[in-house]
């Protein structure tokens, strides 16, 4: 696949420099796979209103399009009609488009200057795939091509059975604008943004997505410069002027393309200190040494808490020395993570356990029975891998029993 070399034109409202800021996060996953309303993450974000300043908020939901499970759902933002026409011409060229419609919205006070919002349910045109090119690689290339060279068009999300809903406003405003209360999903992540300048650009809000991956992020990635240059080597073009984007692409690179197991990908992004590595048993030590030497340019340095959503669950991760808040809880089948405990207790008033994840230790929530989305050839069944990841036997037993059924 050819790397993208064209520069993306900048919007008039967009800041020409990297945007810094603080943020609030939430992530809620029902491990039983039961779907719940988008009103739930809105409530969880609403109590974290102080963590944003009304200049960006967004959500991503999984399991929201059961009627289109095998289609790539493109959520598009268009600056103008011309951008829409140019993009749709590309869609027609690359994909079989089974449904194209405006994203349903409702008028909400405080939400202004929305771009044209459309969604498309598409499948790649098999005749357009290069030899040995996967559907996913094809879609990644399409996303990069639209985001960079098409003037005024921006892909908000492009995964299967999922979607991102984001814009300029406070979380409850954006959530209600997109009518999230009318959707149901098994996993939701949410974000509230406090940028230190006023770009007012909808595409700059979180979550950032690629394929099924969606990322919400609180913090600043001080290593953005090298992370983005590292990703360019692999054909990713960081064109959105925000450091969160690199986290999404790094997960895609390591999990999907390099087939690294999720816990190791987390370790590569937020690795233990050399002192700790030296004290590890030999096999583990050598793995960690290799991860740091090979993925050093991808290490996310600086303060961050991120939640990665995917079809089948979510992962929450703190930076290697825990410089940003992140708290986790479990209540029944619900796994909740957020920047503040209040955001968790709004949804789960009496969780069985609440804990502060350690620096660099991922919190993993898995929807039982769903295929593990990481196609690592680890000589393990997905069930075994999930046990390895969770370290919990009950999940193992449940998954095994499901397989027997």
């Amino acid at each position: 696949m050819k790397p993208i070399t064209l520069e993306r034109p900048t919007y008039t409202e967009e800041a020409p420099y990297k945007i810094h800021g603080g943020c609030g996060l939430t992530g809620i996953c029902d491990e039983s796979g039961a779907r719940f309303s988008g009103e739930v993450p809105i409530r969880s974000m609403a109590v974290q209103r102080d963590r944003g300043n009304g200049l960006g908020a967004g959500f991503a939901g999984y399991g929201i399009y059961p009627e289109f499970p095998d289609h790539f759902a493109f959520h598009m933002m268009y600056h103008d009609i011309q951008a829409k026409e140019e993009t749709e011409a590309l869609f027609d060229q690359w994909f079989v488009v089974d449904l194209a419609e405006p994203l349903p919205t409702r008028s909400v006070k405080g939400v202004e200057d929305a771009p044209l919002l459309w969604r498309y349910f598409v499948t790649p045109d098999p005749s357009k795939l290069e030899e040995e090119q996967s559907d996913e690689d094809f879609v990644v290339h399409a996303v990069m091509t639209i985001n960079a060279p098409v003037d005024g068009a921006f892909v908000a999300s492009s995964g299967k059975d999922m979607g991102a809903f984001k814009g300029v406003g406070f979380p409850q405003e954006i959530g209600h604008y997109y009518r999230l209360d009318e959707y149901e999903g098994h996993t939701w992540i949410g974000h509230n943004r406090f940028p230190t300048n006023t770009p007012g650009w909808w595409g700059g809000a979180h979550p950032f997505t690629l394929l099924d991956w969606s990322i919400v992020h609180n913090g600043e990635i001080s290593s953005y410069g090298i992370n983005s240059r590292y990703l360019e080597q692999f054909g990713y073009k960081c064109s959105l002027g925000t450091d969160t984007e690199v986290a999404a692409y790094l997960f895609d690179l390591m999990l999907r393309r390099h087939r690294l197991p999720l816990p190791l990908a987390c370790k590569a992004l937020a690795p233990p200190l050399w002192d700790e590595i030296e004290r590890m048993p030999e096999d583990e030590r050598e793995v960690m040494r290799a991860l740091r030497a090979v993925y050093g340019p991808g290490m996310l340095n600086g303060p961050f808490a991120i939640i990665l959503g995917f079809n089948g669950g979510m992962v929450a991760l703190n930076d290697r020395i825990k410089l940003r808040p992140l708290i986790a809880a479990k209540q029944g089948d619900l796994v909740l993570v957020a920047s503040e405990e209040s955001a968790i207790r709004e949804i789960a008033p009496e969780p069985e356990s609440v804990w502060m994840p350690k620096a660099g230790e991922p919190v993993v929530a898995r929807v039982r029975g769903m295929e593990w989305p990481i196609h690592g050839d680890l000589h393990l069944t997905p069930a075994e891998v999930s046990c390895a990841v969770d370290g919990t036997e009950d999940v193992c037993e449940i998954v095994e029993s499901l397989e027997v059924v």
Partner: protein
Amino acid sequence: MPQTIIQPEFNVVIDYDKCHKCGRCAQQCGWGVYDFNERPIPDDTKCKACHRCVTYCPARAITIRKHELAYRDSDNWSPQLRRAVWKQAETGGVMLTGMGNDKSYVHLFDHLVLDACQVTNPSIDPLREPRELRTYLGRKPDSVEVESDGEGGFRLQEGAGVVNNIELATPIIFSPMSYGSVSLNVHKSLAMAATRAGILMNTGEGGLHADLFPYADHVIVQCASGRFGVDPEYLRRGAAIEIKIGQGAKPGIGGHLPGEKIDREVSTTRMIPQGTDALSPAPHHDIYSIEDLRQLIYSLKEASGYKPVGVKIAAVHNVAAIASGIVRAGADYVYLDGFRGGTGAAPTIIRDNLGIPIEVAIAVVDQRLRDEGIRNQASIVAAGSIRSSGDLAKAIALGADVVAIGTAALIALGCHVCQSCHTGSCSWGLTTQKPELTRRVDPEWGAERLTNLVNAWSHELQEILGALGLNAVESLRGSRERLRGVGLDAQTCEILGVKPAGR
């Protein structure tokens, strides 16, 4: 006519009221400045301003001044140029010099500034938090391949992971300086310091003296066009092997160590007869093309049991394409030597007029290797006047994995940059083989000073990382977003891949 019409550059001024008449100045001076007859009588024409006598005068009675001779002003014909013409008119020879290019070309490092954290991301507290400098020198695979260990964990697949890499405690190594150009005591100091600091020294092209065998795990053994001291044991003994193609101070030029410097020890180490001139050809006569280089790289790997093999080149106009070829030829690291790099001896005209700055070379090589998707296949070592930890941090931010220091290491050992290494009479006992001079460097003393220098720069690099909010050096490496240009034109900024300050 007088023997020469060239006036001395310096005046040796002695305060005879303070002078003890002890004669130590005459004893210390390697250049023969002093005639001692009841009191020291200096010959200004011989002084190199190396301050050896100044340092060792017990009465602090000596000072060296610039010979303030007025010349008719000319921005075109500087006094230096006039002196050079006179000298050549008198001798008909090629002007020789030591150390690196001293001309006033723009110092790009001095036009680059680093970022720092304020509010939106916390800086790292140097007293409480780690800031890791560990660096691996060598080829890295594209990805890490693991398999389940059957117990919920993972282990590397057979043959996967990072092999044939050298672990460095900090991204600083010592540049190649051959035994012959510098003394054995200097070599010992470098080897001991490299071992203590967890880094590497480099033999240069003069072979490895037996006294350095205990430190061989911290030594890069060089294979240069003269093949001095190269045999299978030598190749197997070092931590890595380096093919020297060129040197920043004299790109495209070979070397010449005069026979009088080839004493018994140098002769044994270089494996050449005592008293013969050691001539390094300008090219390797078995490398006339990139495919020849590939064959030598793999011959050396075969001969050494697959030690990492690096290739050192001078930074020249087409350095990006050359470096790319070197990486594709199988090198584990590319050593780039900028046009300010030092030397034991080089024609002045070559030293001062050939090659390009290291800052540019790092930027274009790093970018080219990334464009070609092979950046991970080799490390970049950058040298050619790394003068401080500021230069070190900027070199790394531009894209270097490791920097190499030569002149700075010699300065740590007392060098005053008098640019007279080629004379073989270094009063500080560094670039000489005269036993009465070489014994001035005690290897233990030298090792301590060199270790201190490396540790000091490492601490300073940690301070810089902390201010940048980074706790590991790999997050600075190639992160040009953290650099800004001050007073650079737009095209230079573009070539360096940095924005101007204010953007």
